[in-house]
């Protein structure tokens, strides 16, 4: 998987897919933070390219 492919994957698995709510879900504050980090990574990689 190339870096570009990984960014595309990240872009989907973090922003799309079924979101389940309920108190039987494990929600670690850390995971939410990590999700944010990944979003930041996405934003950083997904900057306009010169073509």
């Amino acid at each position, binding site marked *: *998987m190339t870096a570009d492919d*990984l960014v*595309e*994957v*990240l872009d*989907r*698995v*973090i922003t*799309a*897919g*079924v*979101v*389940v*709510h*309920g*108190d*039987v*879900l*494990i*929600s*670690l504050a*850390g*995971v939410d933070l*990590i*999700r944010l*980090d*990944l979003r930041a990574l996405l934003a950083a990689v997904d900057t*306009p*390219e010169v*073509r």
Partner: protein
Amino acid sequence: MIPSSHPAVANSRARASQNPETAVYAYTITRWPTAVPAAPVRALTYRNIALVVADVDPAEFTDPAMLPLVRRHHGVIVELFEGTSVLPFRFATMFTDDDAARQLLRDAYDEAVTALDALAGHREWGVRVRRPKAVPPDGLSGTDYLALRRRERSGGEQLHERLARHAGRSTIRRSTAEFGLDAVYLVPLSGEDEFLAEADRIDGPVEITGPWPPYSFSELRTTAR
């Protein structure tokens, strides 16, 4: 494994959510039966659907491990998607135990079957058209500039309409100055050639990604309990 008998459930759940050592990571709902990826991936089944899960230690969801975990998430879903319909969950969805995961599968049964039926025979494609940095000609008035921007925007919308005609469902992911179009399409297998031919007819640099499992078209309203 967390005991499932009552009344220990409430306690174990409370304990689990404070300091869980094991969680049940949910990849996707699929039709059942289907081939399940290698252990530790396993299937919790209910009637003709399954929730594909693996036991994980939530503590492993820390920064350095995150990218391999993202790859694993995608890899499991892609492997299943090669053989059946999937309704993928968002990355890092974890239940406290099997009982909680099974309960969701039961509660969401009707909704999940409807979604799997609708997604069957479709794959997701992404189309992005980057907008070249517009350099307004010298002497362009404010009114002319706004008209130019409006034309650019409606160009993206027209493009989207053309592509969406070949898709069962479609969503514009974001609309920014950077992108003339950034959209995802749920395309029936029988219409992929026409969809891709339409995308190829777009002027300028186009990024087409896919085929993807239907990440962008998977949702459930059912709440876990």
